[in-house]
């Protein structure tokens, strides 16, 4: 029934990885990259959003792969607002995930500092900058602004590709290829992500799925929970 893409644990690990990377560059840590790389991949496993289920009248969110390390149960009364982000054509994900702007800034800063301190590893630092900013394509633009989002992806990719070329990197066309991936992900299912925001007292959870049907099923499940009585099982 959809996967979680944003939660506090994920937010914390993205921040930790960014700050450690920055410190490792600034303080010239030996094996810093290895540690950060390990932490990054481990955090992906721990914070991987698993399926969202409705069990015994509660929305159950789980994270982790292959084991489900984390679990949050939401009572129907905890929920303040639900938004089908595909149908709400004027709402961008950014409204519910404002910290993503901070992550972009943090990762781009790591890339910039890296370029200054260790220019010999320019390809790595340009990737930090690119992948720090590029996710905003799907976060900052509402569904009704696909054209603007595509233009942003294209401009960003061209800018970083030109930058890479100026620095003498032969792999610069790779960034143009990434632009293509982003544009396709905006228009073509199943690359396109359908999303739903669940706002609660405890925070906001973003549920995502490549299939719109799964998001509609989750809303349908919630409907059964509420209309079947708050203790209903779906």
């Amino acid at each position: 029934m959809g996967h979680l893409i944003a939660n506090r644990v994920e937010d914390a690990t993205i921040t930790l990885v960014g700050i450690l990377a920055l410190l490792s560059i600034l303080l010239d840590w030996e094996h810093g990259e290895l540690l950060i790389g390990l932490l990054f991949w481990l955090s992906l496993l721990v914070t991987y959003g698993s399926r969202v289920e409705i069990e015994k009248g509660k929305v159950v969110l789980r994270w982790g792969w292959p084991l489900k390390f984390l679990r949050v149960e939401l009572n129907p009364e905890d929920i303040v607002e639900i938004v089908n982000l595909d149908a709400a054509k004027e709402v961008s994900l950014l409204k519910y995930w404002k910290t993503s702007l901070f992550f972009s800034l943090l990762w781009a800063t790591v890339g910039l500092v890296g370029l200054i301190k260790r220019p010999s590893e320019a390809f790595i630092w340009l990737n930090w900058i690119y992948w720090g900013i590029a996710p905003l394509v799907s976060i900052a633009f509402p569904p009704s602004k696909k054209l603007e989002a595509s233009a942003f992806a294209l401009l960003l990719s061209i800018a970083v590709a030109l930058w890479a070329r100026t620095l003498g990197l032969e792999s610069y066309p790779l960034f143009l290829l990434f632009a293509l991936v982003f544009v396709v992900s905006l228009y073509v299912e199943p690359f396109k992500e359908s999303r739903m925001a669940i706002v609660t007292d405890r925070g906001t959870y973003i549920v995502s799925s490549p299939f719109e049907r799964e998001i509609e099923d989750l809303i349908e499940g919630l409907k059964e929970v509420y209309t079947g009585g708050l203790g209903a099982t779906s």
Partner: protein
Amino acid sequence: MRLPEGMERIWLMRAKGMREVEISGILGISRQAVNKALRDARGKLFEAFFELAETFSWKIVRINAEKGFAVFEGECNGPVRVYAFYLPGEGIRAFFNGEFPEYILEHAVRIGIIREKDKTELVKSLEG
């Protein structure tokens, strides 16, 4: 559907932006009681909006139980936007494509969905 009087009063105070601790101070009840009333109100509002969608086969776009409104997508010779509001003392009222009467604009200003009585501004707020 109407919220019970006491619950509605607490929900309305919260919808207007008051904090739970302020509400408990004004009403002279515990903060836990305020919290429980708010949670129950949310449950009832979600239930009512879901039932409305079910009855008319509308697709759910957004339900906000804190301010008591919902946005649906319906079908009537093409897609239509439906905006529903919970009005204290009256229950739920729904409107098509942003054709709001004056009292809805007043209600929206009163609970802080918009600052001034403006239909376009209200649609913009409800949509995102």
